[in-house]
């Protein structure tokens, strides 16, 4: 993906760039809001990483400007103001996801890849398929190798989230946000418990496991 990072903290920006490049993305840096807006308008990016507090032009204003232009590039907002109401503001301004500082780089990477992928025209899917694992979103059924798998509603949403981001890392925080709609981090491994139950249902009786744990990051569903 081609990603524009608008961030005034040089060191932080450098690390983000380095990390994203290592993950195989093309990264441009903009140190302030004005330049960020210029670059966002000039080139076609797959995703934008936008700091909220920027010199010259505020992150949210930048976002509103490009949305006014009709630009639908997915935007991940970064901010030190890690509160839920700030998040709501950011999303209302046209952001696709919001990440509070401090964040783990893996979290940032997972989220950017998730929103970058969202821009694919897959909005109206009714079926998800990863390897021999199939999910019917309308009938709410799951099959693996044509065997029906019975899931609880929450397990279904958990699997749906993993399947929509198949091949990519989904962090625990992302799962907590997208499956449970919680915006805080529990102190315990409560998500792991749910994931391991899901794993028991979709992987246990099959030869090749699909649901992998990614150390220090989260989970990945992969063939």
């Amino acid at each position, binding site marked *: 993906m081609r990603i524009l990072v608008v961030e005034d*903290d040089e*060191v*932080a920006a450098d*690390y983000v760039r*380095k*990390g994203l490049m*290592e993950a195989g993305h093309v990264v441009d840096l903009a140190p302030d809001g004005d330049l960020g807006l210029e670059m966002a308008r000039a080139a076609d990016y797959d995703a934008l990483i936008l700091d909220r507090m920027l010199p010259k032009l505020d992150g949210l204003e930048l976002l509103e400007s490009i949305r006014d232009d009709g630009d639908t590039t997915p935007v991940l907002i970064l901010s*030190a103001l*890690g*509160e*839920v*109401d700030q998040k709501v503001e950011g999303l209302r301004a046209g952001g696709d996801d919001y990440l*509070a*500082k*401090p*964040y*783990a*780089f*893996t979290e940032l990477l997972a989220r950017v890849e998730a929103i970058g992928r969202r821009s694919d025209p897959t909005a109206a899917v009714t079926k998800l398929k990863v390897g021999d694992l199939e999910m019917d979103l309308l009938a709410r059924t799951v099959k693996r190798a044509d065997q029906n798998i019975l899931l609880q509603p*929450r397990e279904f949403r958990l699997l749906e989230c993993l399947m929509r981001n198949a091949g990519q890392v989904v962090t625990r925080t992302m799962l907590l946000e997208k499956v*449970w*709609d*919680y*915006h*805080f*981090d*529990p*102190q*315990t*491994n*409560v998500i792991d*418990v*749910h994931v391991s*139950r899901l794993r028991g249902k979709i992987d246990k009786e099959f030869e090749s496991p699909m649901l992998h744990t990614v*150390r*220090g990051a989260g989970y990945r569903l992969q063939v």
Partner: protein
Amino acid sequence: MLESLSKLFRNTLFRLSLLGAVLFVVSLFASLGYVYYATVASELRAVDKTIQAEVDEIQNIYQTVGLPDVQRLIVLRSFAFEGRYLLETPNWFVGNLGSTAMEQDGYVPFTLIDGVPGKPFVSKHLTYAIQGEDDVDDLQDRRIRALSGFLIGPKGETVAGLIVGRDVEEIMRTADRVRTAIITSSLIALFLGLLSSLFVSQRFTRRIDAFNRLATDVRAGQLDRRAPRNYSEDELDLLAEHLNAMLDHIDRLMKAMRYAGDSIAHDLRSPLTRLRTRLESTATEMKDDKSATALWLAAEDADQLLKTFDSVLRIARLEAGEQREMLQEIDPKIILDDIAELYEPACEDVGLGFLAQIDEGLLILADRGLLSQAVSNLVENAIKYTPKGGAVKLELSRNMDNRVVISISDDGPGIPAMDRERVKERFVRLDKSRTAPGSGLGLAMVDAIATLHEAEFVLGDGMASEHGPGLSVKIIFPRRRHLRPAIKE
């Protein structure tokens, strides 16, 4: 009754004002006593003098002219209005005091109620009461002041019994009235003194009580409370002023301390984030498994630090109360069902029973995210501190006061009553839990969230077991009319 009385006597001001009242009554009694002495007693002394003079005169007459003249003199004087006499020999008696021994017509028979006749004249003055006959009205039950004794002959022999007295009934009645008046007025003064002590102490106690309530509230963490002032600049008002200044100062210090903590947390976040990123990226590049593991562990420590800082800042923001506008009418069942669903498997995995008893149809003003976080913190605490085989119970109900209560209880070791307020403070961890993972911010966060919801956050005994009394944590929401309505956009 008895208890409230002993409470009253423990009241310093009541005791002081009562003492004042008693002292006042005593001095009143003393001064009235002087009035009595100066009026009634001096009149009696004048009477005594007259009697003594008359006795001396009679003795003198006897010695110069003999008994028959004394007899005549007594008869004559008996007709006088105020004199009372009795001259008595074994064979006869004269005078207007009758003798019990020799009762005759024309004399008033009397019984000496007090005093003994026949004592020498040197005896002291006595007031005799005489019991008169019923038909002699003005002599009935009248008191005389008299000297009684004997006429002494030349050889020192007793010649005749003699009583010389004066009717002092009027004086004595006045004396009685004065005495009654003195006692009554003293009693009235004592009663009024008691009443005024009560009144004064009540008034004063109300103001002192206000200070005590203030101190209790401040100790409970309400640093914004201030002592009421009436601006009279009396000593209590000045005390209130000083207390308030002191509280302002404490408040400023606390805020400064918190601000310093928050600033540190804020400023350390960026370098910590970089540290974490550095550790993480190096760990992924690392070929050596052992070094990679060490780096991952270091990254996890950095995560823990970041989480702690994040919690500190979240609590700071919650305490500032900025998010009160986010509260919305919500059925708490939705929140608790989700939490129950999230944590039930986690409980099962560590060998704990999980019970959820969630009532329907309740409504509170709350923020789903914040309240979920609070309940999640509490459930995680319960899981963390309850030994294997125990149970965690999540309840939602309406209590007797018609208030919505969320309760999380366990059968673990519990928290001693004396520590229950303290553990709500930031970074306070009890010795027992120091070894367990955690930042000591969980309950502080819950406290801040409860306060934001204007709810009470109460710790108590939970389900008793062999591990201890257990812990029960309640979030008690205010009745809905006490809440400010949510601001709808």
